[in-house]
């Protein structure tokens, strides 16, 4: 946290009430070393007539300042995973498992405490910046509301000054004008910067970015990713980014968790996963991408289509489409196997146990 206090004049200053960020920058507590620990997360949407399990046991750990990419096709449950962490589905979903943040389980928190975590310690950057802003409120007023709700600033004037400071932090050149603008008066890129300013306004430990660039022009996408990387570096925030774009995942770095049908099928450092995938689904996904070396039209794609939500087969969910599937794949669902330090893949066929050190059971998936 010390780099915050000594940062540039426009930087966000740390909150005094956060114990681990005491004067002089106390050593990080263990809780802060692993701010977010998700264990066996399961999300089931319930309606009067049916129950649909969309996230089916996802576990991962996100350390301070670290990046985790949830990569997957639409419908893989990556967005739902991200939102379930903040319990944004209310009573329409049942969420099981554990989401530990600083020693507390977010899934057990009472409403009031959950509210102070939302926006305060865990913030969300939604996909579409237009939809993320109240269209009838000026940008500045939306910022000051959050600052005052979380007790960052207590007076209107201080909040307003802080709001402009935040807008400058996210690279908006004329914060005074933008603060008095309505969302529709800004460009898409500016709007997403304002949304990011809202997200980092309370100096969160974890930033969840749900496809933060999908709704933007290609030229703006790179700027926004750069801004996120920059903020992460300066604020020491952990970032959980959801994306379907392998390119974005590769550029942003950090670790990658590949999701398929509500499960993590592969996990590891971005560069390793993308250069040497160890799960047949990840392989198929990467082979279906156009690269300069492969001509268009000669791309290989995965046979078949992902199972519909709630229509999961027995055994490995990818088995029906998997070129390497063997009989046992259709019988039992393999857990995420620890295949190398920091790497996991849910495929015993592609990763046969080595004779010397047998595969660790891995974290229960």
């Amino acid at each position, binding site marked *: 946290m010390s780099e915050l206090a000594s940062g540039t004049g426009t930087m966000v200053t740390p909150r005094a009430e956060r114990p681990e960020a005491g004067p002089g920058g106390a050593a990080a507590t263990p809780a802060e070393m692993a701010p977010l620990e998700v264990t066996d997360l399961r999300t089931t*949407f319930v309606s009067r007539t049916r129950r*649909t399990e*969309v996230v089916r046991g996802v576990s991962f750990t996100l350390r301070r300042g670290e990046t985790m990419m949830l990569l997957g096709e639409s419908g893989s449950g990556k967005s739902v995973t991200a939102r379930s962490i903040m319990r944004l589905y209310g009573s329409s979903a049942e969420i099981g498992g554990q989401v530990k943040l600083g020693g507390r389980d977010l899934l057990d928190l009472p409403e009031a405490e959950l509210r102070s975590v939302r926006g305060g310690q865990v913030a969300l950057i939604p996909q579409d910046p237009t939809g993320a802003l109240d269209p009838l409120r000026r940008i500045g007023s939306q910022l000051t509301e959050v600052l005052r709700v979380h007790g960052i600033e207590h007076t209107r004037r201080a909040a307003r000054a802080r709001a402009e400071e935040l807008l400058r932090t996210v690279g908006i050149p004329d914060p005074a004008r933008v603060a008095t603008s309505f969302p529709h008066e800004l460009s898409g890129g500016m709007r997403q910067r304002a949304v990011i300013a809202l997200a980092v306004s309370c100096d969160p430990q974890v930033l969840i970015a749900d496809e933060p660039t999908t709704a933007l022009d290609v030229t703006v996408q790179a700027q926004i990713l750069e801004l996120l990387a920059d903020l992460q570096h300066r604020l020491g925030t952990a970032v959980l980014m959801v994306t379907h774009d392998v390119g974005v995942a590769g550029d942003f770095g950090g670790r990658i968790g590949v999701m398929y049908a509500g499960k993590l099928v592969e996990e590891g450092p971005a560069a390793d996963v993308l250069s040497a995938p160890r799960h047949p689904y990840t392989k198929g996904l990467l082979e279906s991408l156009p690269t300069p070396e492969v001509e268009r039209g000669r791309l290989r794609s995965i046979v078949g289509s992902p199972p*519909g*939500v709630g229509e999961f087969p027995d055994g490995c969910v990818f088995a029906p489409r998997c070129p390497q599937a063997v009989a046992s794949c259709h019988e039992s669902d393999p857990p995420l196997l620890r295949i190398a330090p920091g790497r996991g893949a849910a495929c015993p066929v592609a990763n046969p146990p080595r004779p010397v050190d047998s595969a660790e059971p891995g974290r229960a998936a």
Partner: protein
Amino acid sequence: MTALTDVAPPRPPAATGVTRRRRRRMSTTARIAVVVVGLIVAVAVIGPFLVGDPNVGDTSRRLLAVGSPGHVFGTDGQGRDVLSRLVVGTRLSLLAGLVPVLFAAVLGTGLGMTAGLSGVWGHRTIMRTLDVFYAFPAVLLAIAIAAALGSGVSNSIIALAVILVPPVARVAETETRRLVDLDYMEAARASGASRGSIALRQVLPNVAPPVVVYCTALIGLSIVYAAGLSFLGLGVSPPTAEWGLMVSDHTQYIYSAPFLAAIPALAILIASVAFNVLGDGLRDLLDVRGEVRA
């Protein structure tokens, strides 16, 4: 885009939600409305053959109460059987509400599509002219027109048609403009289809569902207004059996026979509700977005 066909593709799907949409069907209420509308139409068609002459009255048997022997709904001030008058009046009351909507549907769709498909000036001329009719409080305009033309069913039908055309035209225009912006219209134009053929084969099939839904709900309103014009003495003339006229007839006896005025009023209410619910049901069935604005 595969090939430039001249068959209109189905409406583009709305943004898909997390769960796949179930097959759309009518609610139970809407099914009941279908039955009620069917019954009303049946009564209008065959009812007059089933009951006695609605204009024959026995003045010695005036204002009989509901449930009297031989007169289930009692008798009116001239001793006429209320049930007979109600049944016979169904045909005229229904037609007086239905026909203006039919007129408005045809005329409004034509105007709206023309406006939507023509250039800036054609569009402006038509829509600004319609705006003028929008600037009148609708009921008052209908009353003024009906008054100007003189009483009679046909005049009340014309008056109602005039006030119903502009809203129908707006619905058709909005839908047409939405279609014109879509890619496949561009494709149809590029393929050399004529304006008329585009209007008939591409636009009309897509404009029709929302217009039909809107007009179904308008029928309820139109029935109430038509009976209202008769109530004010601007529709049919006595002694014709018609619901609005019956309300106004029976009003004279609200102190001696309070239920009398409620009977035709209830008939109007039931018919109107039935068509409104039917409109809602059709909207869900055809997946037309938006509420019907009266």
